[in-house]
């Protein structure tokens, strides 16, 4: 039985019916890792021994007739910027190459309390800065649909592992599109939740006002299942929001009747590849045929969003990454003459080029004489972008756009051109700037067979509406496909 291919909700049912054991599920996933990982390179650290140990515990609980939490026995891999107690958390950086956290992130605590199996820690762009997972210090991850292409980023390891069935589910993090863009490139489902709905405690900070952890899965029901397990107020994160979070999986509903979908013209401009546009418009037609109402809308400040995003995110990054100095944890340079020399050499040897560029940009836009022209202006623009969304949502329930302007590109193609790489995020950054939830789901593929993703954006805390819309679309197209053969 190829258990590694099965969706989480089905495995959960099989465990309860004693049709398989947690040990069999875990062994199946590790067999899959054994056969495909040399082509995909999704993981930085594997956690086989502990995973099998945990599976034995879950099987014992089943044998003892104990109540099983919803995610018990399900393999959920974790992006390597989320702290796992006793398991290296590197952020794919040399500077944290040997960092072993003494604590768990809140999301990891929550998943552990549900008895999940954690197969390992996933590759990513260094400090989540990048759109192709190529800035990782350790390795380059491949797209399971075509291993000569990137999986997207920064949660590229998470997306590739899920698409290659090397994990049943995965956690990613999204600061400007880092869950949705790789989900689109790898043909899976990725949800960036409302800012404040998932605790960031234990997520290595990149841009604290934009970062959010979210689920990545091969189908919408599984994404809803994982999201239900990780959301909620956490006293360890002051920005997490107290709310009555329902069970998103139980409330999934396949119905589009009367749903008002807005299409913002700015997201369908010349920059979007014709094949991507055609595929997204085909999806719009399907949604309309099944009861949704389509409205043309406008979000006029979209053109400036990328600039505002890179200013705000880099400013916060320059401040957040000041803590990496070789003193309390992480890499420390070998030879130095004094404290400042130690800081400078440690950071220069420990960070990769992309991280240095962002630190430098952030430092510049916050420096004396430039703060008003850059940072302050970007913060005002953030408010304007947010107001435009609020206005748009007075006339529609969800906004639909392409997730990315093009499909997965070749490894090495854009790595020496930062601006080209940044342009990947053009459709996704506005969502983080406004703190909104958005989901990317597959809606077709291009002539090369590479997946195309569409993005559904909703008002704050409208995850259920987004998941329901995505679920309805998944039913219309009869499910999403992952590659059967990885080459």
């Amino acid at each position: 039985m190829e258990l590694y291919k099965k969706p989480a909700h089905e495995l959960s049912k099989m465990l309860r019916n004693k049709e398989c054991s947690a040990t069999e599920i875990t062994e199946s996933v590790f067999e899959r890792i054994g056969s495909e990982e040399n082509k995909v390179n999704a993981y930085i650290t594997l956690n086989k021994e502990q995973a099998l140990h945990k599976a034995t515990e879950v099987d014992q609980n089943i044998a003892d007739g104990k109540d099983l939490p919803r995610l018990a026995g399900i393999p959920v891999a974790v992006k390597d910027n989320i702290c796992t107690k006793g398991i290296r958390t590197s952020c794919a950086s040399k500077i944290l190459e040997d960092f072993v956290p003494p604590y768990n992130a809140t999301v990891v605590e929550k998943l552990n309390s549900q008895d999940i199996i954690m197969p390992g820690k996933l590759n990513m762009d260094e400090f989540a800065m990048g759109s192709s997972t190529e800035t990782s210090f350790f390795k380059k991850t491949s797209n399971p649909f075509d291993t000569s292409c990137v999986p997207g980023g920064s949660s590229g390891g998470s997306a590739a592992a899920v698409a290659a069935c090397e994990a049943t589910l995965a956690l990613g993090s999204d600061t400007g599109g880092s869950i949705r863009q790789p989900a689109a490139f790898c043909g899976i489902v990725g949800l960036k939740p409302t800012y404040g709905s998932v605790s960031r405690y234990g997520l290595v900070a990149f841009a604290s006002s934009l970062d959010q952890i979210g689920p990545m899965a091969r189908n919408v029901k599984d994404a809803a299942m994982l999201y239900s397990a990780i959301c909620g107020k956490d006293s360890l994160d002051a920005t997490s929001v107290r709310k009555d979070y329902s069970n998103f999986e139980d409330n999934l509903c396949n119905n589009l009747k009367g749903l008002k979908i807005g299409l913002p013209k700015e997201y369908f401009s010349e920059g979007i590849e014709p094949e991507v546009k055609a595929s997204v418009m085909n999806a719009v037609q399907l949604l309309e045929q099944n009861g949704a109402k389509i409205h043309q809308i406008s979000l006029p400040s979209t053109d400036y969003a990328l600039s505002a995003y890179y200013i705000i995110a880099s400013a916060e990054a320059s401040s957040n990454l000041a803590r990496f100095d070789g003193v309390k944890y992480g890499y420390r340079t070998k030879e130095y003459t004094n404290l400042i020399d130690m800081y400078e050499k440690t950071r220069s040897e420990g960070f990769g080029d992309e991280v240095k560029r962002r630190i430098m940009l952030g430092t510049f836009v916050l420096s004396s004489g430039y703060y008003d022209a850059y940072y302050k202006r970007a913060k005002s623009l953030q408010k304007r972008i947010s107001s435009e969304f609020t206005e748009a949502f007075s006339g529609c329930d969800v906004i639909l756009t392409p997730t990315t302007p093009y499909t997965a590109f070749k490894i090495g193609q854009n790595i020496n051109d930062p601006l080209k790489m940044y342009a990947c995020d053009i459709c996704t950054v506005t969502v983080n700037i406004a703190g909104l939830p958005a989901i990317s789901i597959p809606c077709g593929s291009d002539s090369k067979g590479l997946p195309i993703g569409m993005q559904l954006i909703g008002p704050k805390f409208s995850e259920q509406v987004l998941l329901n819309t995505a679920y309805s679309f998944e039913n219309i197209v009869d499910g999403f496909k992952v590659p059967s053969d990885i080459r």
Partner: protein
Amino acid sequence: MKIDINHIAKLSRLKFSDDEAKKFENEMQSILDMVENLPPMEDIGALIDPENPMEMRKDEAVNLYKRDELLANAKQTQAGCVVVPKVVE
């Protein structure tokens, strides 16, 4: 806008060789040209969400970790403290 790469590197506690500085200067310049594409904006203040305000927890001391657990990641320790180069002459 022209960027003074050495000044920004100093503020960022980073060091570049001459060749690296040249490369970074060119890249940073093109990134700056991109982000300069912002419309003239009145200062309308920063985005806050009055419906979902931040909530601080009580400032209470709790013992969560043992000292040696926290020091386990430091590169150099002595007598339960982190060792750094001499700061005061």
